[in-house]
């Protein structure tokens, strides 16, 4: 049996390891802090490959696109990023976090 953890049944790190073994370039985004009605708890992960594969999530789909963009940059430079999605009402539509929650996401390159 594999692929389960106490906090989430999705094994994103296992998926990332498998992708690395296939020769993919991989970055991981992790929710490190949330406020308000963020849909995914701290510790939720999204894995992204340079080739465009995605696994897991860091929100209800609102910010995955923006995070994947940053992840691509991190894969190029190797430099980790700490992102703030602290969304004021007037900007909420712009980045698509309509729930009004706020979160911090850490993005790092694997390997």
């Amino acid at each position: 049996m594999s692929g389960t953890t106490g906090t989430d049944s999705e094994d994103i790190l296992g998926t990332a390891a498998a992708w690395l073994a296939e020769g993919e370039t991989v970055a991981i985004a992790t929710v490190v802090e949330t406020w308000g009605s963020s849909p995914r708890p701290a510790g939720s992960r999204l894995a992204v490959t340079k080739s465009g594969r995605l696994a897991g999530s860091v929100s209800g789909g609102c910010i995955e696109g923006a995070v994947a963009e940053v992840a691509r940059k991190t894969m190029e430079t190797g430099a980790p990023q700490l992102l703030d999605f602290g969304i004021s009402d007037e900007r909420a539509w712009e980045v698509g976090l309509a729930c009004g929650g706020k979160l911090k996401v850490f993005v790092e390159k694997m390997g």
Partner: protein
Amino acid sequence: MTPALLQRLLAAREAKRPVALLTRLPDGAQLLFPEDATPPALAAEAEAALRDDASRSVTVDGTAWFIAVENPPLRLIVVGAVHIAQALVPMALPLGFAVTVVDPRRSFATEERMGDRVAISTDWPDEAMAALAPDARTAVVTLTHDPKLDDPALEVALRSPAFYIGSLGSRRTHAKRVARLTEAGLTEAEIARIHAPVGLDIGAVTAPEIAVSILAQIVAARRGGPKKKAEP
């Protein structure tokens, strides 16, 4: 994350050792707790996060760290490879449970019936349960209806720190069970831990519906039940 650290983390997970990945923010320096030397104040935070099973950010001595909790899977022990177990097992897996089905009746306890993603024990329930040693991250559900099978499993479960114990059977069946367990020397407080009739009362009729009601009750036991609605 370096490849070496990822491999160590996956190895800990494979060995079912609780670990925490500590990431310094924003520069991304990482430690694997408790394997790597960790400053005492940070180690205390990591211990607490593992105990709470909650990943979180902390600030220690003016430095921000993210503690990613990597606890071994929750366990669900199902006694009785019966029809309801066939519905319960595949639903428990995506909830993050490692499932073991216990049933000494070999015609019931087959991979064909239970699927290949669960462990199956055909030992007698008291022996199987003693070997499985339920801990505070384990839920136990008895489904056989048969006192010869359910009771010995319950006797072990009720003296364990299992976070949930449920037992299929009507109120009448349960009243008889309580009498037998009392006779067997279990205390009123121990016996009161049994959720019976098992599952949330949602009027479940079919096996999958009963499985949903049981799993909902297990989730409630783990997460602390109904929560207040978030402030708008």
